[in-house]
């Protein structure tokens, strides 16, 4: 092991105080401190300074009004992120009607706009978008699990009384997908069970909802906004798994879940 000199030790002391050094580096700091009074004093001073900042510096609390302002702005954006209104496009057409070229361009734009607006957006696309949004939001809010348990005998009863169907729950730890828990979610304005699994730090949400005549269906594999979706139906229930994994990885998950179901 190389010996630390004082300037380097005084840098490493900070990683040491913050518990960020690996065992070898921490040992090197230890050895240097044992033989160097000046660096020992420095270390004590820095430990005190660190503690002083932790204990003495004010943690600012966000003003309540700020939360409401942000919420209002986001709601406004949410309302606006639908498709552009016909009136807005129509207004744009007349605003730019200045010469033949722009009139032609505007008319072309209008035709395209009418086609876009007239084409009904498929419900299935909406369901895919909704699932991606629910998945991302649950990750962002770090509230993606209402009942934390790897025990399916805890998770399954938790859903009863909250749903009018009984979602199957399996721990797939042996197959490489440990169960983290579950939460209640909503898809297409209907309650849904969401089971949360993990594989190598990737969070997999599995949404489960009864199949309905009017309900949307997704293709078995779908890549949407960077996320992979895999869906299937069984016993009158629709299953949709989503994660930031590749198609093969998530298909392996669905295969593991389905074979666990078949084994019951």
């Amino acid at each position, binding site marked *: 092991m190389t010996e630390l000199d004082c300037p380097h030790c005084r840098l490493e002391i900070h990683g040491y105080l913050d518990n960020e050094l690996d065992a070898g580096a921490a040992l090197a700091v230890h050895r240097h401190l044992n033989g160097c009074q000046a660096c020992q*004093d420095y270390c004590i*001073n820095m430990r005190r300074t660190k503690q*002083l900042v*932790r204990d*003495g510096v004010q943690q600012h609390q966000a003003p309540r009004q700020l939360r409401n302002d*942000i919420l209002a702005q986001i709601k406004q*954006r949410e309302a606006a992120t639908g498709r552009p209104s016909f009136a807005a496009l129509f207004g744009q057409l007349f605003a730019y009607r200045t010469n033949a070229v722009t009139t032609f361009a505007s008319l072309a734009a209008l035709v395209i706009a009418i086609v876009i607006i007239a084409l009904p957006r498929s419900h299935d696309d909406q369901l895919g978008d909704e699932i991606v949004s629910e998945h991302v939001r649950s990750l962002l809010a770090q509230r993606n699990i209402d009942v934390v348990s790897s025990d399916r005998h805890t998770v399954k009863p938790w859903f009863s009384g909250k749903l009018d169907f009984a979602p199957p729950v399996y721990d797939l730890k042996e197959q490489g997908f440990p169960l983290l828990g579950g939460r209640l979610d909503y898809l297409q304005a209907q309650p849904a069970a969401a089971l949360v699994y993990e594989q190598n730090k990737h969070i997999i949400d599995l949404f489960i909802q009864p199949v309905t005549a009017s309900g949307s269906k997704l293709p078995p594999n779908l890549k949407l906004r960077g996320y992979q979706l895999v869906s299937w139906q069984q016993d009158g229930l629709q299953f949709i798994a989503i994660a930031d994994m590749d198609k093969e990885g998530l298909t392996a998950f669905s295969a593991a879940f389905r074979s666990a179901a078949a084994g019951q």
Partner: protein
Amino acid sequence: MHWFEPHMDAAWNLARWLLRDDAAAEDAVQESFVRAFTALDQFDGHNAKAWLLTIVRNRCYSWLKQNATDSSALRLDDDLFDTDALPELADHASPELQLAQAETRELLHKALAELPATFREALILKELEDLSYKEIATITQVPIGTVMSRLARGRTLLKTSLQRLTLP
């Protein structure tokens, strides 16, 4: 509970300590969260807090650059850590602050506010938000080694400045 709420206090605290101005911090946090909303599909799903704080921090630095009255407010040239340049602590036998609690807090805030922004943010993210070097590196967009050297310089400068303030 909306998705951004668990991270509001951390975002506000960082913006408030970087900008030291309530109105500017409000604008920065609000703009950042609305911006995050429009870029939700760029979030990789791993660390929401770090992702949001990165956006807030970038917004704060844009504000600091626009409003810099003197260049010393925003020193960004500290990235190369010069071990020889690490200031020696004055060898006062006991630099313990012999002051009343409120006075200590006030001096501490003054000393922290005087630090260059890069050192101040490293200290805030480490000691108040309890983030790891890796998370701080992500948010401030520098290598992990630079996070450690900034904390080293930040703490040393803070200590020196506290000594100067208490022992005029």
